[in-house]
């Protein structure tokens, strides 16, 4: 009898414990992505890293913190500025620590939940591990995840942020990476004029020029840049001759397959108005130069024929992909407290 009572006590205590635990969970507020109607299913497995407000906040602080670099001078935002679609504008090749130049133009960051491979050569196979590339690169941040974890553990601010996000104040490599994904996954651009046009929303009325641009786009560009993400998220050879000062063969460097020579990741075209210069090595400053390349190269399987007027219309359409709500969304900006 004595024994039985004890078991009952334990059971009741356990039940209370579970209730308190469940109640305690409410303090981490879920922040699921609201996926626009008609968009495909995301690639990212959210069940392994459920999005919360606290996780997002930690990721945002990390994104804007130069502590991540060896000498505390470079943050992710150094090469990924919100107002320009989270990329580094006006530099052919992005620069990092000690003013060192990289070999490519930084990529934009948006709608990453749909991406399977990252970087221009697709060398990174999961969003979670993407931050390791700039972190370890000797010309970007020149730092190790191990040392970043050490630095974060010593900051009271981060102990609080980690506790809020993960219920444990101690940083680990995994938690740093999961928090980054929490922030990056929220960078969703889906409120451009084009989106409003497709959803028949206010402000989505296309001019005749924009409508013709969309028609031309669907005819000539959509095989590599399909709606609504404006990328296949795959790799393609786009006919650019190799820059012999860089000798960047793209995807082949990862797969070691000669078939992949000069293939690069197809970038999204969303917010393209602001993400200049264009191509993996930033060789084109203007959208017009990009269109001139595609309509003159002999390297494509299907040549693109565009008249001067058609190019103007196509550019008018591309400008409808600008999403000011996204580019100026305060939640994604520098955390001022």
């Amino acid at each position, binding site marked *: 009898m004595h024994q039985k009572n*004890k*078991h009952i*006590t*334990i059971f009741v*205590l*356990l039940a*209370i*414990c579970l209730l*308190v*635990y469940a*109640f*305690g969970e409410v*303090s981490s507020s879920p922040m699921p992505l609201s996926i626009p109607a008609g968009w495909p299913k995301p690639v990212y*497995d959210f069940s*392994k*890293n459920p999005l919360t407000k606290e996780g997002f906040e930690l990721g945002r602080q990390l994104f804007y913190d130069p502590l991540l670099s060896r000498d505390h001078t470079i943050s992710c935002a150094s090469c990924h500025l919100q107002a320009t679609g989270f990329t580094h504008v006006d530099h052919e090749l992005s620069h990092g620590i000690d003013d060192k130049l990289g070999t490519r133009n930084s990529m934009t960051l948006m709608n990453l939940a749909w991406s399977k491979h990252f*970087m221009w050569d697709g*060398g*990174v*196979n*999961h*969003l*979670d*591990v993407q931050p*390791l*590339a700039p*972190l*370890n*690169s000797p010309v970007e941040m020149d730092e*190790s*995840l*191990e040392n*970043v*974890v050490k630095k974060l553990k010593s900051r*009271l*601010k981060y*102990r*609080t942020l980690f*506790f*809020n996000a993960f219920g444990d*104040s101690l940083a*680990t*490599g*995994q938690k*740093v*990476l*999961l928090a980054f*994904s929490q922030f990056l996954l929220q960078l969703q651009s889906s409120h451009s004029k084009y989106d409003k046009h497709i959803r028949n929303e206010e402000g989505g009325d296309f001019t005749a020029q924009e409508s013709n641009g969309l028609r031309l786009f669907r005819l000539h560009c959509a095989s590599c840049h399909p709606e609504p993400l404006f990328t296949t998220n795959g790799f393609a050879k786009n006919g650019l001759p190799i820059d012999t000062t860089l000798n960047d063969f793209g995807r082949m460097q*990862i*797969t*070691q397959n000669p078939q992949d020579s000069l293939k690069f990741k197809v970038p999204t075209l969303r917010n393209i108005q602001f993400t200049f210069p264009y191509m993996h090595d930033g060789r084109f400053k203007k959208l017009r130069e990009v269109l001139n390349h595609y309509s003159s190269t002999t390297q494509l399987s299907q040549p693109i024929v565009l008249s001067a007027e058609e190019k103007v219309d196509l550019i008018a359409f591309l400008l409808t992909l600008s999403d000011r709500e996204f580019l100026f969304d305060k939640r994604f900006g520098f955390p001022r407290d």
Partner: protein
Amino acid sequence: MVQASNLKKAYLKQIEKKIKNKPQVFTNSSVKTGNQPILHAMNKILRCLILACCFCPGYGQNHQQPFEIHISPVFASAPLVAGRWYLSPSGDSIQLTNLRFYLSDIQLELSNGQIISDPQKAHLIDIFEPSTLQLSIPVDSQNASIKSLHFNLGIDSTTNVSGAQAGDLDPAKGMYWSWQSGYINLKIEGISPKCNTRKHAFQYHIGGYLQPNRALRKIELHVNTTPQEEIFVKMDLATFFSNINFTTLSQVMTPGSNAMKLANYCTQMFSIHAPKK
């Protein structure tokens, strides 16, 4: 029973540690004050639970007994020690400075046909970190004998594409490639006067999870022992270096045909030492 009480002690210690850690967090004023009463209540409940556990005989009793596996690194017949020079079968002087690798998906095959899987997915072994050289696998059938030991040298493809992992698989452990995602299955680093490199160093980082350069190797060793005994897995570096020509190959740090070749040499290193009586 001794085992069970040990487990209980470890569990209590863990809980106590958790409770002790919490006030450190509360010293920060920016923590939401709304959480405090709940967490204080939780602390109290946890304390009650600890007491309840102490007074409840048989609680947490576990019939599983751990089977101990020891990894014994050697160079031919000599034990492997950091900073000591060894002579390879091909006549090269060698000193090892870093030797770390992943053992994953460890399984024990019993005489009754049962397969026992290690609950921990992967172990990061550091030859110069003795605490990592001992593994224990809980075995619940004490009457059957252990026929063989199976493990992977390296990390499987699924784990390689599954994003950020914890524990030994945390990329902060330095066994992860950043510019081309994937785990480094094994790192062998050291010096030999034969190497025409800076400081005569050799570095072999063996990995790669995509075909045709999948560097993971499955290893099976015949054991024939009882769960009450322990086994010693000998890892003989001399067999690895007998294949190595330092003048032609002293640096491998990418997946590819060289990594595949080195991975094959690695499989020859492992054998079972007679169990200590």
